């Protein structure tokens, strides 16, 4: 079973967007392109209001991903859990598709008797261990995030530690919004581990508006750009994920 590369956007924010396109629509667009959008809402002592909460859930739902709201102390563990959970979800989707082709109709894993489900699960586990993964991290750097950024950095380092324990390849890139001049700014281009983040992150400035929608939109093009660049270099990269999804 060929799954190609799993593509995810991981959005880390603490509230509501207030500029540009509707982030929920942009997340739906991402899903159409085979990119999953996960959202983590970070709280300090403050509580995220209802509107922010709805947006966080809405983005993840239309982006086919997972959302979770946490206090910043629990960020590290949540980031890796959310990413893995979304991976399993996507892979499960792939496996379900295959199952439907074999069994016909709209049967999914969940409809199988427990014994057979276990065997299928082993396939999903195996895929989760070996599949290639691309995670684009989108960090909200509006003013209220300022004192949460050190924790975000820790959590991202921890994420690369977790994912690099798998045998499949990983690539990460990090974007922040709002950027200095544009809505979004690239902090780190595709890289297999996030260690270089330490020095860059301390120089970050925070402030301004929260253009979540435009940020997701821009992130999508980054996946695309990279794809065309790679296909220039090597022709054997045709099997992309959309085929199997």
């Amino acid at each position, binding site marked *: 079973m060929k799954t190609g590369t799993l593509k995810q956007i991981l959005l880390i924010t603490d509230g509501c967007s207030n500029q540009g396109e509707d982030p929920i629509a942009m997340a739906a667009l991402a899903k159409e392109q085979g990119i999953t959008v996960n959202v983590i809402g970070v709280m300090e002592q403050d509580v995220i209001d209802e509107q922010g909460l709805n947006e966080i859930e809405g983005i993840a739902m239309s982006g086919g991903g997972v959302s*979770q709201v946490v206090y910043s102390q629990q960020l590290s563990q949540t980031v890796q*859990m959310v990413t893995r959970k979304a991976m399993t979800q996507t892979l499960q989707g792939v496996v379900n598709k295959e199952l439907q082709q074999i069994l016909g109709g709209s049967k999914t*894993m*969940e409809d199988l*008797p427990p014994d057979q*489900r*276990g065997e299928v699960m082993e396939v999903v*586990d195996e895929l989760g261990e070996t599949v290639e993964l691309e995670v684009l991290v989108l960090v909200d750097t509006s003013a209220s995030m300022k004192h949460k950024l050190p924790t975000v950095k820790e959590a991202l380092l921890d994420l690369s530690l977790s994912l690099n*324990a798998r045998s499949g390849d990983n690539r990460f890139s990090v974007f922040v919004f709002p950027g200095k001049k544009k809505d979004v700014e690239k902090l780190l281009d595709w890289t297999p581990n996030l260690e270089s983040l330490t020095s860059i992150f301390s120089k970050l400035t925070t402030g301004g508006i929260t253009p979540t929608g435009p940020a997701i939109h821009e992130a999508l093009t980054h996946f695309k750009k990279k794809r065309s660049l790679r296909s220039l270099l090597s022709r054997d990269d045709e099997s992309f994920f959309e085929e199997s999804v």
Partner: protein
Amino acid sequence: MMMNHSLKSQCKVNPGTVIEGKWHRNRYTIIKELGYGANGIVYLAKNQNQQVALKMSDNGMSITSEVNVLKSFAKVQGSALGPSLLDVDDWDRRSGKVSFYVMEYIQGPDLLTFVQQKGQAWTGVLIVQMLKDLDSLHKAGWVFGDLKPDNLIVTGPPPKIRTIDVGGTTIQGRAIKEFTEFYDRGYWGLGTRKADPAYDLFAAAMILINTAYPKRFSKTTGDLKQLKMMVRQKKELMKYEDVILNALQGQYSSADEMRNDMLQLTRSNPAQRSTVNRNAGPAASSQAASRQMYRQKKQKGSFFETLLITFIVTLLYFLYIYGQLL
């Protein structure tokens, strides 16, 4: 805990609820909640006058995954690695389908509670017991993963330590499925999250430390130095210092090795807890010394090895880039 609203609402059931499986038609009456984690809630339940533990989750995948682990444990002969699996099924609720599995109910206090009630003398004994179980688990190709006092129940009498919750149990060589930061090698910057026996032994050492610091402590420098310091501040830990440090640094390749060192220490340290460590006896100290020397030799060799490998990899990488550019 994390705020997972959906989890709470889906699997929250009241005592007295009868759960009937869709496939095997067994009926379970819920008695009370035993505990909950990231992947579901565990209930004490009754089935034909037998007390059982029932775990349910709206994430059917994690249930299936854990069932797979328990099933493969059952194939390892004559061992009590995890609770034995009794039933797997789905429960149709009005709000949706909930997957659950039923296992043997392991009754007793968790490790920390037990040691607090019965005294520190039990720590060594129970850890030695645990290491024996870990050894057979490792030999069967698994790593426990989320090893922590909450997942260690002391049953009995006679007291016997048992592991529960196989949510983190991972096939060796893969990435650890689930862990708790304080007991995680990666969190302290002392290794990867790849499942190998040494990962569990690191957690075992942290559990030993945990018995002297029941409230745990937070990461400051977050490295070996901090952990060393914490060990040296407690008399009851000084006794195990060598073993703890070896395990923290991944020096043990098997649980048996760590167990033997633990046994050496407890054997050569009869009842006089005031003069620890230095009177640890010739056998233990000489053994520890020889271990250290061996390690130094090994480290020197491994340095050149690393250098050589780095060189070869760099060379290959350049060749690859060269090939790509052409």
